[in-house]
């Protein structure tokens, strides 16, 4: 009961704050013209949803692979993975999008901008995921690995029953955060004319000259994608807590 009252209090304060901000602006609301373009919002939201979903899948694939390569015994592979992670994390996504689309994809003859867009997002997020996984694995104490060897676990068994559950649990919050980031970062794909949520909202903005009437649905649309991910991550975290 008191939890709900506190929650309501927080929401009330927040709405007071927003109300004060907007009454200071004297903004003329014009929801009708923005509402006429609701199909554009819906189409964009769906595009963002599947672009993010596919990118996420490949990002985990690339990220896990990079983590494995980072532990490889053959040194060139290890350095390659290191260079990939550092270059990708150290340069702006905007530059990467332009570079991959107009230079790499053009040379490779890939014309479909959606394919290139998903590949760019997967490569970009993969670097972050790889770092998160690496930190999780390295966070498992040396003594546990020694204990595992002492009771005769094989390398696979050590990985499956000692390293993986702990690494996964400790890296879950960061992974959920990275997933939310991927969804939001996909908005940058608008610069190569991928018709996703942000670009469509900007188009409504440009056609109707309404700014907040298209930005609020935009914020809300991203929230309904990112909030469930955060909740899901919390609940998995709690389940894994009992296992270890």
């Amino acid at each position, binding site marked *: 009961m008191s939890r709900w009252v506190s929650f309501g209090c927080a929401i009330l304060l927040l709405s007071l*704050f927003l109300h004060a901000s907007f009454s200071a602006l004297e903004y003329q609301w014009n929801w009708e013209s923005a509402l006429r373009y609701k199909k554009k919002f819906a189409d964009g939201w769906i595009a963002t949803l599947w672009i993010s979903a596919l990118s996420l899948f490949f990002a985990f694939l690339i990220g896990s692979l990079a983590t494995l390569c980072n532990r490889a015994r053959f040194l060139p592979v290890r350095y390659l993975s290191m260079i990939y992670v550092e270059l990708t994390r150290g340069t702006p996504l905007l530059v990467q999008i332009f570079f991959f689309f107009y230079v790499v994809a053009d040379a490779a003859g890939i014309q479909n901008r959606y394919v290139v867009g998903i590949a760019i997002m997967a490569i970009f997020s993969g670097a972050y995921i790889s770092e998160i996984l690496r930190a999780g694995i390295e966070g498992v104490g040396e003594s546990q690995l020694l204990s595992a060897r002492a009771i005769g676990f094989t390398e696979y068994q050590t990985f499956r029953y000692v390293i993986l559950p702990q690494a996964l649990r400790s890296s879950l919050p960061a992974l959920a955060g990275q997933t939310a980031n991927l969804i939001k970062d996909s908005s940058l794909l608008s610069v190569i*004319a991928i018709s996703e949520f942000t670009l469509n909202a900007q188009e409504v903005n440009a056609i109707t000259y309404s700014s907040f009437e298209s930005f609020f649905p935009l914020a809300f649309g991203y929230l309904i994608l990112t909030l469930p991910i955060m909740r899901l991550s919390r609940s998995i975290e709690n389940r894994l807590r009992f296992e270890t």
Partner: protein
Amino acid sequence: MQPFGESVNGVMRLFSFLPDLSKISICGFGIALMFLLGCSKGRDTQILVVGMELSYPPFEMTDENNQPTGISVEMAQALANRLGKTLRIENIPFAGLIPALKTGKIDLIISSMSRTEERAQSISFSNSYVHTGLCILVSKNGDSHSIKDIDQPGAKVAVKQGTTGHIYANANLKNAEILLFDKESAASLEVAQGKVDAFIYDQISIYLNWKKHSDTTRALLNPFNSESWSIGIRKGNDGLTTQVNQFLADYQSSGGFDQLGDKYLSEQKREFKKLGFPFFF
């Protein structure tokens, strides 16, 4: 003993039914609220704030020292001098200019903006000072010669977001797929690489982009419609509209536009004469 211990404790006891963290956050919110409500809307009336997108040479651009320069900037300066005000240029993306004007962040838009019906519904316009039209950049080996050739099923047409090219394409292209770009350079690169079939923009931009990619693109420089550039003014600001219109008339008759044309566009003027197309400035 701390000198303020007693009184601070007294204040804190008032809030003691709340846990510690929430006290801090409520104080934070309170301060932010007061700050917002206390902010006065007034701005210095001696400053004329002009909004433009500084990525449209030679009208709106920046020089080597990152200072605004170009035809529109000199025009704005002359207008500010006439009104007896200090000029401040705000660099705002094209699609954001009208919202900025509507919310009072800027006083005027001088950004090579064409007067259209849709725009005139949300802002006022001065009399027009330049007449131009939309042209098309196509890839070199294509066989398009007019806007009709481009509007085919399966064709892809690039436009810059919020420009008249965008508005025209939305209203008139029934068959082609329209792709939106934020940057003019990206749109022309798409034509040069053959990723899209055409790019619709105004005459001078198409000409300049064609010069940049002359071995991969072709420019159709005969405008297929006509439009005119005006200065954007907030609705209801009739006093300023009259002043701006007077300024434009005087600037025209005193040869201000011709001087700017000679200074910034003499090369293009000669080229257009050679090509046999009407030049707009």
